[in-house]
């Protein structure tokens, strides 16, 4: 693994995918992987296969739906879109994430003051 890169934190990939679909509308798996790669600015290591693991899981939970369509370069592709339930989940997990990261941030600042 290249230096300075971090593995995707367990459970955060679902959140990233939900947010991506929420912000950019229906996308196929490859597009989602590219988008996350681009946003992470090569800080995160992402095995792109795990994107699909997440997609299957999210679909089972009913947070996303999928349908077949044609990609930008005229290939048949499966497009994923966020559902109502997914939006609720996104809200909940976003709030959760902000709370936790806030707490951790406070803890870390506390240490550096000493």
């Amino acid at each position, binding site marked *: 693994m290249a230096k300075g890169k971090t593995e995707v934190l367990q459970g955060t990939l679902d959140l990233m995918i939900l947010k991506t679909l929420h912000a950019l509308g229906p996308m196929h798996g490859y597009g989602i992987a590219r988008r996350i790669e681009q946003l992470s600015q090569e800080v995160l290591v992402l095995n792109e*296969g795990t994107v699909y*693991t997440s997609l299957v899981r999210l679909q*089972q939970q009913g947070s996303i739906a999928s349908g077949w369509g044609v990609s930008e370069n005229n290939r048949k592709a499966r497009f994923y879109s966020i559902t109502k339930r997914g939006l609720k989940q996104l809200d909940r997990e976003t709030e959760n994430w902000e709370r936790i990261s806030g707490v951790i941030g406070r803890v870390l600042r506390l240490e550096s003051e000493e």
Partner: protein
Amino acid sequence: MSRLQIFVEKLKGLFTSRKPDREFDEEIEAHLKLLSERYIRQGMSPADAASAARRQFGNLALFEENRREMRSLPSIESLWRSVRYGARQLRLNPGFTAVAVLSLALGIGANTAVFTLLDQLVLRMLPVKEPQRLVMIWPTEPHLGNNEGDRSSSYPMYQDFQRKAEAFAFVFCRYDRPLAITIGNNTEPVNSELVSGNYFQALGVGATLGRVFSPETDDRVYKGHPVVVLSYPYWRDRFAGDRNIVGKKILVNSYPMDVVGVAAPGFTGVDPSSSPHIWIPIQMKPLMTPNVDGLGNRRLQMDSDVRTSASPARTYMSRYVSAQLFDVTPTDLWTCLVAIAVLTLVAATAGLIPARRASAIDPIQALRYE
């Protein structure tokens, strides 16, 4: 995202076709192709690009496995594999299979039989009025003059009890006896019960047809009540439910008697081990049992219906069973527990033998069977 919903999705995955799997494979294929095209655009050779794409994608086999586990219920699938493996093992060892199956069958059969008996004798109440109030009475002094087991009494004793035992609403007596009954030209054996006149009244059993005995009309004259009450099943089966049976004459032990009634359906006496076909007043006993005649002999069983009981009254049923089962009280917890433990041990042992054999198989050998 309820857990139930996920479970349902997985169940669907278990039974639906493999089409989604193929579609997924195509999807991943397309993804890899796009990735490698991107690497080619960045200046890689096609071969390098393909392997770089695969590296970027991650462990395909692991991912496939994850996906299958998420899509279906692996525990059910592996259970099915185990079942098939077990069936194969059983087929390969027919001798052991036979022994295992037979011992299981025996165990189940024995358990069922024991429980049925217990159910009939202990758990089920008699189909009479307030069966839990029924008790059996017997003296505990030395059984002088007793010639029918240690629970029997004589008619004079019964009369004493009836007069003096004020705690009991009714005291009645009964005497089991196989007799011969002649109808037309046919003579056949029947189970009969000679009973005191208040027998039906005490048990709260009425008549389907005609009347049952009463103390006023059927328990007064020594040898003077030649009347018979038929049990409902006997009347239905032997006399085809003939509604004109009341008033007919039949011979009981060659003695002519009148049929006066049929007892209520469902009532077959107080002794589950012998169901009487007919009832006869106890006063007729000398005629029915000419060799051991008289009512002075201690041959009767006394039962009574406790109304204002001062002493703890155990039910008649458990008394009866304890007498039958070697003086072991069947409701005794320890007896029950030991019986259950022994039976369970037998069943477990029966299952253990094939299990031990299966586990003793060399894994390599097991693979060869696959």
